[in-house]
């Protein structure tokens, strides 16, 4: 049964592309296709997890979607409306924001907590007077469980978990609908990680927030996500419900990726059959022709070298880009 709150897509991304021009000689550049023709949508109140190996383009998807980078191609829709013109982008940015991975480097150590959280309010002139600004900042601090007495302290005086709370309070300042969470707990100790994950959960329940949750810890992603998308070398290769993709991954890459996750249970871990992957990920500057995974795929055929497989819905809600799904399963 479909959950009602998930009916309208809040975010829709169609054929998104982000190419970076990289210098390869004194006067020569080459496009690095960090994100190449990626499409997905996220329903209101939903959490979409985004996983894949380092450099596959997860952060770039998040940044390009928010128009922190100008898309090389493709379209983004917010609540059904295009995000295209300058004013549309400005409005969108009030409603869509980002929490970053590293709570140590993403906050300016010379700013006080109150200035860090208040900065977005200043930029968008969201208050009538000083008192209103102050009140809003304290309200945000309370929301993420920070002690209001700490408002005038500097970010470097806080522990990792507290810094991540500061980052989240800042992201909440403009009362957004949508947050791109880019590895928000990766730098935290396990016990602190759980505190922050719970907070994302609670904020979502309370405010109906929608998340794009990027992480390389697949157990964390599974815990928090309704659906999960897997990327490889700038392409999306699989997208399905969280349970479905864990229990029945269809793409050969997802299968190896999920089988490689170390399970924190000795009996299961010892019995686990990992599907080993040979070789390293190719450089995105020299991506293979056809299917990007073909250099490491045991099911690759001739067709895989010449044709990029289409990202299509093979079962209801389960999208896969592979020519040989039948053979691989």
């Amino acid at each position, binding site marked *: 049964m479909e959950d009602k709150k998930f009916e309208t897509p809040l975010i829709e991304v169609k054929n998104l592309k982000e190419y970076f021009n990289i210098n390869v000689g004194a006067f020569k550049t080459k496009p690095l296709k960090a994100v190449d023709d990626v499409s997905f949508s996220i329903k209101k109140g939903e959490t979409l997890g985004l996983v894949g*190996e*380092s450099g596959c383009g997860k952060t770039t998807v998040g940044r390009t979607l928010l128009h922190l980078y100008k898309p090389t191609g493709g379209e983004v829709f917010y609540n059904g409306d295009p995000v295209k013109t300058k004013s549309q982008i400005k409005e969108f940015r009030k409603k869509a924001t980002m929490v970053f991975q590293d709570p140590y480097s993403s906050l300016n150590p010379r700013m006080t907590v109150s200035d860090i959280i208040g900065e977005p309010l200043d930029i968008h002139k969201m208050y009538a007077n000083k008192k209103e600004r102050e009140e809003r900042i304290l309200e945000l601090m309370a929301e993420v469980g920070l002690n209001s007495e700490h408002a005038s302290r500097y970010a470097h005086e806080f*522990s990792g*978990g507290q810094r991540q709370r500061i980052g989240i309070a800042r992201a909440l300042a403009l009362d957004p609908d949508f947050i791109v969470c880019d590895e928000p707990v990766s730098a935290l*100790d*396990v*016990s*602190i*990680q*759980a*505190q922050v*994950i*719970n907070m994302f*959960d609670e904020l979502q329940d309370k405010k109906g927030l929608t998340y794009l949750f990027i992480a*390389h810890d*697949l*157990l*964390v992603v*599974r*815990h*928090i996500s309704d659906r999960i998308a897997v990327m490889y070398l700038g392409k999306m290769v699989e997208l399905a419900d*969280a*349970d479905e993709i*864990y229990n029945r991954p269809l793409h050969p890459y997802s299968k*190896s*990726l999920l*089988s*490689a*996750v*170390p*399970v*924190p*249970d*000795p*009996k*299961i*871990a*010892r019995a*686990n059959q*990992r599907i*080993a*992957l040979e*070789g*390293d*990920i190719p450089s995105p500057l020299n991506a293979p022709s056809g299917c990007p995974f073909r250099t490491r795929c045991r099911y690759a055929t001739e067709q895989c070298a010449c044709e990029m497989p289409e990202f299509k819905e093979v079962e209801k809600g389960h999208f896969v880009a592979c020519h040989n799904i039948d053979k691989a399963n």
Partner: protein
Amino acid sequence: MSLLEVKDLRTSFFTPAGEVKAVNGVSFFLERGKVLGIVGESGSGKSVTAYSIMQILASTGKIVGGSIKLDGEELVGAGEKVMKTVRGNKISIIFQDPMTSLNPTYTIGHQLMEAITLHTDRNKKQAWDRAVEMLQLVNVNEPLKRMKQYPYELSGGMRQRVMIAMALACEPDILIADEPTTALDVTIQAQILELMQSLQKELGMAIIMITHDLGVVAQMCDEVIVMYAGSICEQGTADEIFYNPRHEYTKGLMRSIPTQNTAGKKLHPITGTPIDLLNMPEGCPFAPRCDAAMKVCIKHPGPFMKINDDHAARCWMNVKNGMEAGEVEPVLESEKGGEE
């Protein structure tokens, strides 16, 4: 006699703010061919334990007590000459970030050969052959080409494998791996862990695996040490630690990790903030964060108590439960202050 016997190891850093007791009475045995995991919160003393064994501490750090015996030979106070023959030869270490331990200005081949000639009496030609052989052993493709390349020309996973090759070049008895895969992707991590496991079986090497990833521990380790605030709070076989944790910190740790069963539910984090080693509480160091803390915990650290042949823990709960079940005699003489 065990291969490595660490007894009541104490290591401190002498800082302007005071003495930081980073390792405060750690004891364990490591048997030949076994994998010992060390887990615990950031700052709990895992790396300092490893660095103490290797005696590669920062200049402010000092082993202030205890004993480290390798094959029966005392290493504490043995002097730099002895340690030079131990390091790389008998015990090797792999660090978390391979870039900090590979020299960016020398080729892979140069660095491997240096490690080999330093610790064995192979000549240059033999060292070259051995280096190539080691690269093959750790599954680095095109080893002859890699020998001439610089670290930055290799991927992260490949650099980590080169580090392992370097650590293994002299066939150490013990490999210490300090967060060896934290910076790597899961598929590369799986390759490296499998490689370590197969080498361990082939060479009969013992491994000390330091990690915060309980999944890695579950997969790799025979025995596990759980550290909190510089001391061991629990110790036992992997199965005992995972399925029968008997210290409240370990229990909290196990509860706080997401698993396949937690989706859609709340996690149970450990509350409070990590310990400040300069302001250690008097009793159990975990007491300020422990939901089960009793009066006795605040005044006295828990007794290190045997749970069974494969398991020991330092928690008053075990005394309390044992007394209630009539299995444990009332509290030790020296702990008379406990009212519980």
